[in-house]
């Protein structure tokens, strides 16, 4: 039985790896936001922590709710509790997610709608950043700014940039066919050659912004919880 439980616990951790901090576009496991995950029979308990007491509650809610869904998706797990620690809105978020109240139900006086638009906006940013990394790869391989608007997914060599771009495209419902263009607008439309440089420059600013935010949050987490410094994953 112990073996079954430890396998189940491993499966919960693996499931949690798919949960991203929407702002930082990184897994909450890699960010070291998961303090513990335990399995007792068919019940999983996951404890989470964040870099500051004032981290935006909307993003915190998304991570807690996604962690709940991830834990519940593991075969054999029939109930889950997710505990966000040391946050000013811990109580509202923990009880809201546990009750399946949704975001509005968790913050009835302060939230006007669910977080779909917010999530969508940050998925869009994550796609733009992944697109910039892919374009950077192509430029290193000899493509030019002028030719970049013609580059297709099939032109991307196998590797981290390609994998990441495909995942982020899927998140924003862009097609994954090898013939699809790499450098596109938010709606997937081609970019005119004259606009390629500006689009790429803007994408670069998005990537710098997300990466910088991740640096800051990692540092603050390590200061708030000494000894928690996570290995940085390659970005």
């Amino acid at each position, binding site marked *: 039985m112990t073996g079954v439980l430890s396998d189940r616990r491993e499966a919960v951790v693996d499931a949690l790896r798919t949960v991203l901090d929407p*702002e930082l576009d990184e897994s909450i496991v890699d960010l070291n936001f998961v303090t513990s995950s335990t399995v007792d029979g068919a019940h999983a308990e996951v404890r989470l922590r964040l870099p*500051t*007491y*004032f*981290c*935006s*509650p*909307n993003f915190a809610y998304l991570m807690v709710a996604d962690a709940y869904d991830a834990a519940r998706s593991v075969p054999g797990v029939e109930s889950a509790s997710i505990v966000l620690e040391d946050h*000013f*809105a811990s109580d509202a978020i923990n009880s809201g997610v546990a009750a399946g109240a949704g*975001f*509005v139900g968790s*913050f009835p*006086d*302060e*939230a*006007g*709608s*669910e*977080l779909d*638009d*917010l999530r969508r*906006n940050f998925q869009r*940013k994550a796609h733009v950043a992944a697109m910039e990394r892919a374009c950077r790869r192509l430029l290193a391989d000899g493509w030019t*700014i002028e030719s970049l608007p013609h580059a297709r997914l099939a032109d991307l060599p196998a590797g981290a940039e390609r994998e990441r771009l495909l995942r982020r495209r899927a998140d924003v419902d862009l097609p994954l066919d090898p013939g699809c263009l790499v450098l596109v607008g938010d709606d997937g439309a081609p970019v005119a050659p004259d606009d390629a*440089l500006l689009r790429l*420059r*803007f994408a*670069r*600013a*998005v990537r*710098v*912004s*997300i*990466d*910088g*935010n991740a*640096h*800051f949050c990692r*540092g*603050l987490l*390590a*200061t*708030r919880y000494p000894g928690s410094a996570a290995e940085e994953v390659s970005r």
Partner: protein
Amino acid sequence: MYTKDGEKYFIVDSHIHLWDGRAQNQKNIHGKQFIDCFFDYHTNLSPDEVKWGYDEYCYYGPDRLMRDIFDEGYADHAIFQTTMLKDFFHTMFSQSDQAWELTQKNPERLTYNHSFDPRFGEEGLDWLRADAEKFGLRGVKLYTAEWNGQSRGYKLSDPWARRYLEECLALGIKNIHVHKGPTLKPLDRDAFDVHDVDAVASDYLDLNFIVEHCGLPRLEDFCWIATQESNVYGGLSVVMPFIHTRPRYFAQVIGELLYWIGEDKITFASDYALWTPKWLIERFVDFQIPEDMTDYAPITTDQKKKILGLNAAKLYDIDVPPELAIKIPEEAETGVAVGASS
């Protein structure tokens, strides 16, 4: 003034605080968490040799401030920015009386910026008029995420906020410093969103909007807006200390800012006492974009001079001794956006 390698830099620290975060001033747990959060910022991003102890960090007083900013910190002028946080602290977080007293004693070296909160409606407008007269206000610091009773934040584009901006115009308060931080309301949106600045900047062209922390963590949105508006500036508070912990990231942010908003729109700030200015200024003068970052042009001495003081001096009409100003080459007008060559 700071001198290095024969170059002289006029220094304006455009964002300093005199705060009291001690336990006796905290109204509730949020006040304690607020100063603790600041202390974590300080501890995480400062070099070891300039880190403070917790108690002194909570309250350091006017004497230490003058020493850190002017005696050791090279500043020719510094600007107080007020952070009220009335819901978290009994006598506000910023110690307004002490800051104003210091400013009166050192009018050549200090400028005092107060704050307003449009959620106080008509009564708050009266306070703003009285404050403008009492302090001779040239600028205000706004914290759109501040809690106020049931409200957990506001937007600059709200009707009442516009009334206050119009009053600022009438009162000659031309510099609007905006801090973007996590808010609760409306909680379903992104609290760091800078788009409300865009909306008001184009409607009030005679006001300057200085977005503190350059809109981080939404740098790209800030840059995009700032390129559209002639009166939007980026304040380097919080950005600066990355020069120590993350120099390559700092290079990228400065590179992006120089590309998008240009060298005339960026202002230095230590955010004292979040960080002490001495080491920030020394490191920035020594700083260069790493050679392998070919996306960005090297940063020039003149650009550093503008960022460290000349730009803020212009915003606040601070006299700069002629020998510290930039010599403008006869054939060229500066101010052309400096980006990479391609």
